């Protein structure tokens, strides 16, 4: 393979990988706070991305349409968390998992009713003129996705590390009882985690929509985000980002060496491989359960 082709594959792999990383992060943010996996995350960003699309079609300038999507994502998360998830506080994590799975189906159906299940082109905003990186020419959208994701990830890192709210979230993740005793309102942290995760998901949706066409099927990205999170050791934030990037690159690299049809199995092969070889993920610690 030529260097140019390799650079090309790497860049597009990192771009999709960034999206997986962001979706994985949104899953991990909710998981760390509440110990449940929100499988409706994918459909939640489908809805918010459609909101941006509708706003743009109604003639709103693109930045304003994006803002509308982010606000819609936050509101949707708040409503779901307050109205449904918080009421099932006594349920087991498995029950909540099924609830979020059900929610994803409901949201997808609702999105289908409002916007139909067709594919829509989403306005692209990164320009079309290829940019030269060494011998390769890369489409700007890939670099834009990588750049925007890295910025958002850095912001999240700073939020969790340096702010009072971020510290409260990390405290709740480690020990809920102790968090209460420090004067942290645990339910408020749950809401905050849902809102933050939903906003991160919304950004992922807005970044990927111009590349893949906007449709209700876009919610399936949550599966790759989930795999990115498992690769990273479900809970570690840097781990998810690395897991996502790795998944994106391998997914783009594999068809070059293996039969092309392998592409859509790559995430699952990786998932099984990591669970067999290193069940705690790349960055995680293993908590073995006796059987």
């Amino acid at each position: 393979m030529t260097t140019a082709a390799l650079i090309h594959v790497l860049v597009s792999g990192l771009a999709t990988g960034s999206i997986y990383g962001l979706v994985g992060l949104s899953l991990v943010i909710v998981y760390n706070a509440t110990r449940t996996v929100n499988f409706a995350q994918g459909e939640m960003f489908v809805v918010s991305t459609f909101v941006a699309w509708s706003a743009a079609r109604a003639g709103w300038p693109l930045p304003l349409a994006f803002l509308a999507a982010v606000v819609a994502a936050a509101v949707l998360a708040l409503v779901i968390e307050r109205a449904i998830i918080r009421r099932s506080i006594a349920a087991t994590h498995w029950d909540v998992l099924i609830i979020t799975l059900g929610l994803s189906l409901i949201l997808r159906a609702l999105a289908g009713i409002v916007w139909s299940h067709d594919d829509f082109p989403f306005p692209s905003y990164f320009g079309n003129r290829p940019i030269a990186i060494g011998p390769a020419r890369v489409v700007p959208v890939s670099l834009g996705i990588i750049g925007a994701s890295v910025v958002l990830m850095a912001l999240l890192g700073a939020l969790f590390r340096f702010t009072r709210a971020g510290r409260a979230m990390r405290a709740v993740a480690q020990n809920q009882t102790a968090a209460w005793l420090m004067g942290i309102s645990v339910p408020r942290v749950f809401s905050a985690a849902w809102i933050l995760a939903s906003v991160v998901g919304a950004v992922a949706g807005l970044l990927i929509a111009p590349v893949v066409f906007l449709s209700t099927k876009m919610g399936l990205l949550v599966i790759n985000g989930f795999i990115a999170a498992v690769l990273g050791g479900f809970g570690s934030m840097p781990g998810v980002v690395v897991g996502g990037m790795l998944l994106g690159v391998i997914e783009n690299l594999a068809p070059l060496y293996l039969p092309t049809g392998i592409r859509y199995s790559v995430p699952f092969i990786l998932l099984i491989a990591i669970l067999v070889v290193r069940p705690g993920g790349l960055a995680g610690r293993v908590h073995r359960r006796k059987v």
Partner: protein
Amino acid sequence: MLEVEAIDVAYGKRRALEGVSLSVGEGEVVTLLGANGAGKSTTLRAISGLVRPGRGRILCDGRDLTRAPADAIVALGIAHVPEGRELFPDFTVEENLLVGAHRRWQREAVREGLERAHRLFPILRERRRQRAATLSGGEQQMLAIARALMARPRMLLLDEPSLGLAPRLVTEIFRVIDEIHATGVGILLVEQNARLALGAATRGYVLETGRVVAEGPSAVLREDPRIRQAYLGLAGTPP
């Protein structure tokens, strides 16, 4: 300052407390004695809002906090150092202290709190960049107490602070309890070491299977034949 009025607490069908009443005055040190499972920890958990009494009331300066969420109770000035310390294992020592000051907004106050914690437990300054999980048992207990003090409470609920510690460290912890008391903070002390507890406290309560069976000034409790036998390991009658 703190008034517990005839509270019942049940875990499912099991009744843990029945009609427990006690009070702690402003700046007073009071101890709660009793065997394992008598309901001492449950009493503290009810006061700090971790469990809800089925009946009875808990008042702080006359304000009813029986149904208040735990975070609001901290804001009222009651801090709880729970059994088993309950530190944040992945946080550094300093992060544990900072999260203890969650309800305090002024940067200056937080910095003063840190300095006070370091004065009280100099070892915590040395270890400030270390993860809490890597501390020894004694250091963890010190951190748990220092973390609770970061909220600048008027009342401290201490659950078995000497549990599992070497005698030298137990002495150290009790020295600090005296120091905290000297700054005017009230203390409700649950302690298995009845001799030390009665030494530190002016009054005490004795719990048995969820009920208060004895109460009074420490000096009186110390002479009570039943308490001498059950909790002090001495012959029934004082010499």
